[in-house]
């Protein structure tokens, strides 16, 4: 796109470009959709800053009658479950990303090595699982009963560790970034396979690794299905699942706030139900919303590489 746009417009001519009225129409169409993509988030932020009285009066509205910070006060006041869940989300995301990236580097490096004898076998071994699987119920039974993925952190981490798609993406990255002669010369210099991989290959493949890490991090951060299947303890649930529980039962967070007796019933009575929920949503989305423009570039390069057939 840069090449095209550059050729066409710099220097003031519109040679080969669409006419001005057409371009205005394009901006309206695309701009409108782009605006709709961000609109619900803006709306949610506004609701979270609306006072409860205002919501009772006019409902969820773009311009509330009265602004208020009460929802956020309450969220942080009742925060025990929030902090716990926040910790769980961060812990699971960081640990899961680290382990999954390591497994991915090792496996895809082997797929990348043309001189590896069982390359074809391991390629098929991972690719086949993209085409066929046991299904949810057998996988659930095996994980829960045989592998012990039941109500523990492992249940939130292990099921997402491996993605055959990421193997293919990573292997393509290696192919583009690492000349095979490099491995040969390292091996002639007496470098062991692991040393070659971690001291020579990994440093020059960092952009690719960053892409995989970000994709995995995002998958872990947004994960709620595993909690739905395997987790029963409130101690263990991550943010997304906490949000889901709050949707069905607003008092969920209050009940897990560490408050008891009259203090608890007081808190439930004063709960700014509607803005409270939306404030939670905002707190969960904000980290993504602010980090995303910066890591977008890496994700895009990962997605486009993964989709290109060799």
């Amino acid at each position: 796109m840069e090449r095209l746009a550059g050729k066409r417009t710099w220097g003031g001519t519109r040679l080969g470009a669409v006419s001005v009225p057409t371009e205005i129409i394009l901006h309206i169409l695309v701009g409108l959709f782009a605006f709709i993509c961000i609109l619900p988030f803006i709306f949610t932020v506004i609701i979270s800053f609306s006072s409860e009285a205002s919501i009772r009066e006019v409902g969820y509205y773009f311009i509330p009658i009265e602004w208020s910070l009460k929802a956020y006060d309450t969220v942080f006041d009742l925060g025990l479950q929030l902090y716990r869940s926040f910790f769980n989300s961060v812990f699971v995301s960081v640990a899961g990303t680290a382990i999954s990236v390591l497994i991915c580097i090792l496996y895809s490096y082997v797929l990348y090595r043309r001189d590896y004898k069982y390359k074809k076998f391991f390629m098929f071994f991972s690719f086949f699982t993209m085409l066929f699987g046991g299904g949810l119920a057998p996988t659930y039974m095996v994980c829960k009963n045989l592998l012990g993925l039941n109500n523990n952190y492992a249940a939130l981490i292990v099921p997402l560790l491996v993605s055959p798609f990421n193997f293919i993406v990573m292997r393509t990255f290696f192919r583009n970034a690492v000349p095979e002669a490099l491995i040969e010369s390292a091996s002639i210099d007496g470098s062991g396979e692991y040393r070659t991989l971690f001291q020579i290959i990994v440093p020059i493949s960092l952009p690719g690794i960053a892409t995989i890490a970000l994709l995995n991090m995002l998958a872990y951060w947004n994960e709620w299905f595993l909690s739905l299947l395997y987790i029963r303890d409130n101690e263990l649930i991550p943010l997304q699942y906490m949000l889901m529980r709050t949707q069905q039962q607003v008092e969920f967070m209050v009940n897990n706030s560490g408050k008891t007796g009259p203090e608890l019933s007081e808190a439930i009575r004063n709960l700014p139900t509607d803005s409270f929920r939306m404030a939670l949503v905002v707190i969960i989305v904000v980290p993504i919303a602010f980090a995303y423009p910066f890591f977008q570039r890496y994700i895009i390069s990962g997605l486009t590489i993964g989709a290109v057939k060799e």
Partner: protein
Amino acid sequence: MAKSLSPNGTLARRRFNTKTLVLTTMALPGAIWLLLLRYLPMFGIVLSFQDYKIYTKAPSLINNILHSKWVGLENFKFLFATTESWVMIRNTLGYNALWIVLGIIFAVAFAIMISEMTTKFAAKVYQTLMFFPYFLSWVVVSYFVYAFLSPEKGLITNLQKNMDLDPTQWYSDPRPWPYILTFAYLWKNLGYSCILYLATITGIDSSQYEAARIDGASKWQQIRYVTLPHLRPMIIILFILSVGRIFNADFGLFYQVPMNYGPLYPATQVVDTYVYRALMSMNNIGMSSAAGLLQNVVGFICIMVANSIVRRVDPDSSLF
């Protein structure tokens, strides 16, 4: 290389074997994971042909399976005996077929429109905004939808009231849900596929457009004869992938966005939600496995057929 350096073949052979061994240890963590979490459950397919019961004397998954009664195709018969199953199959296939077509048309259209913009900065901003929903979970999206449709406070509900219309009971009336789900799907996923197409358009050599222009091709003709042919392989790959998953639905979309409300099931029940509900709410492991197996077998057949058709028509675009 190693071979040519060693005078007699033995050293080279030993080094070769060590190398194979060491590289195999690298593949092991991933391979073990695949074995335990992907291949082992494939044996669990037997559950679809059993009346799964807990073996009370020594309950463990293997004992339970060994001591459960074989019922042949009974689970499948039950599955198809209910009207519910036809609803979920209709929904899954219907939504997927519609969304494959709409997804391709809209994503390609937006990608071409963005690529024709001369203000690069605006194009970049649009792209960033359109990609944003892709990074959100369906739980978050369900709150977004709720903000508009909530029965007492939702924006749209209130607008209807203000205009003296009967407010739609969004969470108990299944009729509007095909549109809501379609909108939610496109809203969340268009940015992603749009970026894939845009990357392909960026890669097209600009001299092709210049040549077309010199030959007097209009903008439409350039799109028709230069851009679209270049996009074809990508369109076909994404098409095969989605056809292969035509019997699979995005669980989060159908479970979270309608907030799991029962009255909406006629419009929101799909195979994936059924498999989940049969397993977790009804505790009917046989039925759940049967539905899951059916889904996987049909998916496997679909991707094989789609791929072999593409391979015959256009070998370069096939997936494998």
